[in-house]
């Protein structure tokens, strides 16, 4: 480190930094790679024990099951990255599934109408959350817990003990949930498309990076002139829109909908996001990780059934795996930080 006195320090520095950067990149990439690895192992082991797990029907089922959770996880990531949280997603999905179902029941409305209505309702919910959090500056957890209760109540009020029955939902809409394109069901296609689009935006666009900046340090973001309110509002709006879409897809997939069908999903979604390596304190994480987290959690559920593990163990194992995932992630990060310190370039 004689560079300090010499004129062009850039030359040796950038080189030295290259190695370090590689390491850091590895850590960052590892978050997703780790989940992917766990997923592969899980699937491999299960398939060895029960080959039907990887049958066409089996794979299709897993992807179908994960799609809706993954969509929600993508939306939640946007919010969590800005150091906020949206606990109302589950209730929004329920409300949308029910209201859209009610609207299209017994009619011949097509997919577009259903999606548009669902997205509109979701956007409205997201807008309320977003306005409260960003413009009124009230804590996200409290607000969205509040809207969770309100939306849940609204859903029950509208439902009034009735249910939407698959028989009355137009076939076009049901086929959105169960049909496929060239053998690949629509649902995962939609989720993957949304995930890629959002992920690309977050990584490669200036405004996308601002979501991370806000979550990393709101105070610094304010001083940097980042339009915090607008971005946070956008995050909630997007989460709402995706929840609306997810609600419509829920209707399309299941057909039968009772009031508040996705009750308790907020914790699943948050779990997926956390398992996927998105820091709950904001600033870190990708939608790919979150979507993988959703896939992992869903897969665990299916695997336990397929492996004929006592269903009573299922919840415990999901919890355990969640803990393992975050602990492993953390341990690797700590180990790497230590390695980085020891090869501290400045004293190297």
């Amino acid at each position, binding site marked *: 480190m004689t560079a300090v006195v010499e004129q062009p320090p850039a030359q040796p520095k950038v080189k030295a930094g290259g190695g370090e950067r590689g390491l850091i990149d590895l850590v960052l990439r590892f978050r997703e790679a780790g989940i992917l690895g766990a997923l592969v192992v899980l699937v491999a082991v299960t398939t060895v024990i029960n080959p039907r797990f990887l049958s066409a029907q089996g794979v299709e089922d897993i992807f179908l099951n994960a799609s809706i959770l993954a969509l929600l996880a993508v939306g939640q990531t946007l919010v969590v990255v800005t150091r906020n949280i949206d606990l109302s997603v589950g209730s929004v999905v329920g409300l949308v599934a029910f209201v859209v179902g009610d609207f299209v029941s017994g009619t011949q409305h097509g997919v577009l109408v259903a999606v548009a209505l669902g997205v509109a309702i979701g956007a409205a919910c997201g807008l309320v959350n977003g306005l409260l959090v960003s413009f009124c500056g009230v804590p996200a957890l409290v607000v969205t817990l509040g809207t969770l209760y309100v*939306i849940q109540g609204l859903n029950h009020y509208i439902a009034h003990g009735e249910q939407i029955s698959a028989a009355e939902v137009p076939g076009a809409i049901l086929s959105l949930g169960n049909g496929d394109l060239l053998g690949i069901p629509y649902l995962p296609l939609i989720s993957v498309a949304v995930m890629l689009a959002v992920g690309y935006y977050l990584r490669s666009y200036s405004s996308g990076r601002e979501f991370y900046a806000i979550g990393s340090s709101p105070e610094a973001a304010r001083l940097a002139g980042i339009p915090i309110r607008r971005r946070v509002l956008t995050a909630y709006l997007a989460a709402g829109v995706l929840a609306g879409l997810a609600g419509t897809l829920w209707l399309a997939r299941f057909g039968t909908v009772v009031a508040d069908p996705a009750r*308790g999903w907020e914790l699943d979604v948050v779990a997926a996001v956390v398992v996927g390596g998105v820091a*709950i304190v904001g600033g870190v994480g990708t939608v790919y990780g979150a979507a993988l987290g959703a896939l992992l959690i869903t897969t665990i559920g299916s695997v336990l059934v397929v492996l004929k593990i006592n269903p009573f163990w299922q919840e415990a194992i999901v919890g355990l795996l969640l803990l393992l995932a975050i602990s492993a992630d953390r341990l690797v990060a700590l180990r790497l930080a230590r390695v980085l310190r020891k090869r501290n370039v400045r004293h190297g």
Partner: protein
Amino acid sequence: MAEATGTVRGKGAGAGRFVRWDVVVTALLVAVFFGGVGISPDFGNTDNLSFALGDLGEIALIALPMTLLVVCGQVDLSVASVLGLAGALTGWLWNAGWAFETIVPVVLVVGVVCGLVNGLLVTRLGLPSLAVTIGTLSLYRGLAYVVLGTEAVSQFPAQYAELTTTNVPGTPIPYQVALFVLLAVVTALVLHATGVGRALFAIGAQEDAAFHAGIRVKRIKLVLFVVSGLVAAFAGIVYTLRYGSARADNGVGLELAVIAAVLLGGVDFDGGKGTLGGVISGVLLIGLLRNLLMLNDVATEIQSIVTGLLLIVSVLTPRLAGVVRERRARRRPAAAPA
């Protein structure tokens, strides 16, 4: 200069102090109570009130350590699952012929272990407590199912079960409420008048600074999680006795109710701010309001909506009041240094 401005500032800040969450919530509580007595004759009778208070029992108990945790910037979402696990264990051991007097300490130890697991994961690995306890929320609930499966165990010894449904002799106060009052006083003193309390606020507001001041951050957090587990397990036994039924799904979703009460009471989820008095008001407000709505046959869905709105309003009011005050202050800036 210090002295001169000191007196002037007193007034302005006094007005600012008034509009705090906990004050708003306490005011609402008073309003609901007297409004309730006015609207519904059955609301104010001691029978109903002591039931309504007793019905809050477990939420209120768990809210105490939860307040400490949230003040210290942590959260324990696994409490309801620990409660369920404690209930399931109680039932299982009871079925297996254990003496109830042995079951209680064993179950409490299990609660401590649950808290310890949470605490160690948070302090040793430095994981965010929200993530950890979402994990243990599933884990402990799952274990409850593993222990008890589909069974529902009942018929616990009457002499203990009665303690959870009867009043302290000669008073309209349920035993649980008496216990809660006792623990609340202790918790309030710890939080607001001891060194540990000071440390909790410091950790919640700025952990690094607290650590640099020689505060044993990790140990304090660990102890808090352990206490939280212990209280949740105790609440699990109470719950089981009160409903006379040990089931794996006892208290599902209770954690959100507890957190709602704590937040409603004005504790900042980011840590470092809040009062225990506010939390107690929050707990009571949710309980009494629910009771009042039920008595007037307001449908469940409306109750849910009211609870949600209450949460939103309770955080919104002080903010809006603050904004209004600021506007007003800005309009007459010259007045300040008078």
